[in-house]
Every structure is written in structure tokens, then in C-alpha cells.
């Protein structure tokens, strides 16, 4: 039993390491891969080429035990004496604490503090993602795959089968779409040297900026900055919402490594059904 668990844990560790290497990483917790010897790809017109798959696809090679049974138990830390101690409790509570450990917070005007607190405390019932709403920009984060043409960038996201088409031909915002109520906004991209700067407006106010109840208005503007060094992509978003924020909020940069598997694909996402909501009975988040 013990030996099987050890084997399983060892294999899991390898898969975890491989998956994390390929998937999202907060720049504050992961340094970019050593790409010093990898030239940054460029298109025929000399622009940085962001094309590529920027997420992993999972996988691994764990084996069943000699009886064909599979036992995989998610790890959690032990409990302190006197602490409530049940499976997953610490795992989930650690997650909740971790979500609040980021010192980079949006600074709301004082008259909005009570609303943020209410949304946070009641997040199990009010978080739009719990209700299967799209995350929206910027909560959706960096794209999983990018297709670049001379006039457009196409961002593909695994979650919710989401795509964004971002013109980079120098046009301004569309006067109709920029007044729409969109989850991903009306986006246009412009080059600042080797950085692609994406400006998005025209948002619904039904999404959050992040898990702790950070709301925004439908007059929000999001500016994303995209850079590539070798095979490392860096994505960073700044939220401008002067109706509720005291100052623009620049989120932590996210770095992703290029998926080197030429056969890696984004597969379609499946529908979301909010079946948990009817059974959540406490406010504890995690």
C-alpha cells in the first residue's frame, strides 16, 4: 500500500512538474525559462511572431497497482493540533489564503469598499464564474494559443471555447462595438517597438477582475501588453476604471513557455452547468 502510494506520488510529481512548466505561471513565482540562446521568432515584416501554443495539454504515464485498482489522493498538508482536520479542508483553505496573499491589489475608492467586501464574503453565491458566466477580460488571463497574421492576432482560449480577434492594422475602435456590453470587449492592437499593446473597451459589468470580489464598471478600459523573448510569452493587463478605482491597476505579469509539441491541440471545451450552487451552504471560500 505504502509502496504503491509512493510510486503514485512520484509519478504525480513528474506530471505536476511537466504540467506546471507548460501552463500558467505568475511571474512573481516562476522565472522565465532559460531562453537566452533561442532567438525570438519574427514574421516576414519584421514583427515579433507571437504564434504558437502557450499551454500544455496534460498527460502522464501512471500505472495501476497489481490488482488494476487506481488510488490517487490529492495531497494536503497535515493539521496543527486542535485544527479541524478532514480530507481537503487544508487544501481548500490554503487555496483561499493563497488567493489573498497577492499584495498587488486594485485600490478602490472608499465608497466602494463595502461592495467589494460583500462580494468577497458572499463569493460562493455571487461570483459570476460559479454561475458559469465567462471569466471575461482580464480575468481570463493569457491566451492558450495565438495565431498571427499581418493584420490580426487571433487569441484562442481553452475555457468556454473563447476566441478574440484583435486587429493590428492601425484601425481605431469600432464606434458601435466600443459601446457594446461585451465579456471580452472591442480590442485593437498597436505595436510599441517589440511590444504589442492591446486596448479593449465596451465591457459588460457582470464579470469580476479577480476572485476576491473585484468588480468593475462597463466603462472599464483594459490595456494588455504582450511580449515574447525566445520561447517565453509575457502577458500583463492594466485595468483603467476611474469611476471605481483610485488609480489604474496593473495586474501581475503572467509568463508562459511555448509548448514544443507540434501536435498539441486546443480541444473544444464542454458546457458549464452550475449544479454546485444549489448545494453550497456555507460562505467559506477556497
Amino acid at each position, binding site marked *: *500500500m*505504502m509502496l504503491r502510494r509512493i510510486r503514485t506520488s512520484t509519478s*504525480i510529481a513528474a*506530471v*505536476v512538474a*511537466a504540467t*506546471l512548466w507548460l501552463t*500558467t505561471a*505568475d511571474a512573481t*513565482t516562476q522565472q522565465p525559462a532559460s531562453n537566452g540562446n533561442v532567438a525570438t521568432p519574427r514574421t516576414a515584416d519584421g514583427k515579433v511572431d507571437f504564434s504558437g501554443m502557450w499551454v500544455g*495539454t*496534460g*498527460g*502522464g*504515464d*501512471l500505472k*495501476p497497482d497489481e*490488482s*488494476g*485498482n*487506481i*488510488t*490517487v*489522493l*490529492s495531497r*494536503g498538508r497535515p*493539521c496543527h493540533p486542535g485544527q479541524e482536520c*478532514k*480530507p*481537503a*479542508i*487544508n*487544501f*481548500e*483553505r490554503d*487555496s483561499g489564503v493563497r*488567493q489573498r496573499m497577492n499584495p498587488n491589489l486594485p485600490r478602490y475608492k472608499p465608497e466602494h469598499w463595502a461592495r467589494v467586501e460583500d462580494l468577497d464574503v458572499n*463569493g*460562493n453565491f455571487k461570483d459570476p*464564474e*460559479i454561475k*458559469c458566466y465567462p*471569466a471575461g477580460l482580464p480575468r481570463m488571463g493569457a491566451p492558450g494559443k495565438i495565431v498571427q497574421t499581418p493584420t490580426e492576432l487571433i487569441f484562442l482560449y*481553452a*475555457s468556454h471555447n473563447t476566441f478574440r480577434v484583435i486587429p493590428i492594422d492601425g484601425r481605431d475602435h469600432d464606434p458601435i462595438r466600443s459601446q457594446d456590453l461585451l465579456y471580452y470587449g472591442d480590442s485593437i492592437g498597436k505595436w510599441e517597438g517589440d511590444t504589442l499593446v492591446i486596448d479593449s473597451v465596451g465591457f459588460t459589468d457582470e464579470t469580476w477582475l479577480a*476572485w476576491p470580489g473585484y468588480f468593475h464598471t462597463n466603462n472599464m478600459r483594459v490595456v494588455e501588453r504582450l511580449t515574447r523573448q525566445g520561447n517565453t510569452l509575457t502577458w500583463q493587463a492594466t485595468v483603467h476604471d476611474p469611476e471605481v478605482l483610485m488609480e489604474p491597476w496593473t495586474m501581475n505579469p503572467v509568463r508562459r513557455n511555448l509548448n514544443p509539441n507540434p501536435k498539441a491541440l486546443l*480541444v473544444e471545451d*464542454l*458546457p*458549464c*452547468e452550475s*449544479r*454546485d450552487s*444549489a*448545494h*453550497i*451552504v*456555507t460562505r*467559506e471560500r*477556497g
Partner: protein
Amino acid sequence: MKPWTACSVLAAVVLALSTAPPAVAHHAIQAEYEMGQTKGFTGVMTRFAMINPHCRWFFEETKADGTKVTWEMSGAGPQALRAAGLVRIFQIGQPYEVTFAPAKNGANVGRVRTMKGPDGKVITLFHEDPTDPLNN
């Protein structure tokens, strides 16, 4: 890929994904389930739903007096299942012995711990008991 190998891959992927920095909404599992309790039933799997944010397995249990009870079990996310090629290993219409952490609100809903299928093999997908010395 053999089904059981695929199943183990699923579990690893589930863990890997759950270990990654959180990017999506999440609620504490203890807000919904009594994680320190274990209940069980034997029922026929009637539906396997590949839906976000958690896959669902539906069962119908027939009590000794002939009455029918339906159960809904929650587990891993569908992307993890698919990445491991595990979509078709569950056998609709076949009996399963299921153990689970029950819903706090008393509904016939649970967080699945184990499923023992008609071939006698057991899938265990849960969280370690932090009081178990083997886990520390």
C-alpha cells in the same frame, strides 16, 4: 492506452491542475460536502455528464422495498478526463458500488470517493486524510 492506465493519468492530471495557480472561480469543497463523512450505495449508473466545472455521475439505487433513489456524484473536471482519454470507461446501465462525502444540505448529492465497477476494479479519486500517518 489501456483504460486503467488512462484512469491513473486522469488522476494525475486532476491533481496537476488543482495544484496550478488558481485562475478560475472556486468554492471550498467543505462549503458543500461533509468531507469527514463517508456514505455509500450500490446503484446503476444512468448517466455520465461531461460538464464543467465538475463531471457528474448519476445513479439509480433500488432499495430493498423496491423504491428507487437517484444519486448525483461530483468529481474531476471534464478537461482532465478528456486529456487522459477516459471519457468512455464508465459503463452506463451497469451497477457500481460508490462511496462519497455527502452534501451538507442533505440532498442525494456527494463528492465521489470511490467507484467499484462491474469488473471489480476500484477508482479512488479523493483527498488524503490528514490524520493518516501514511500521508504525513
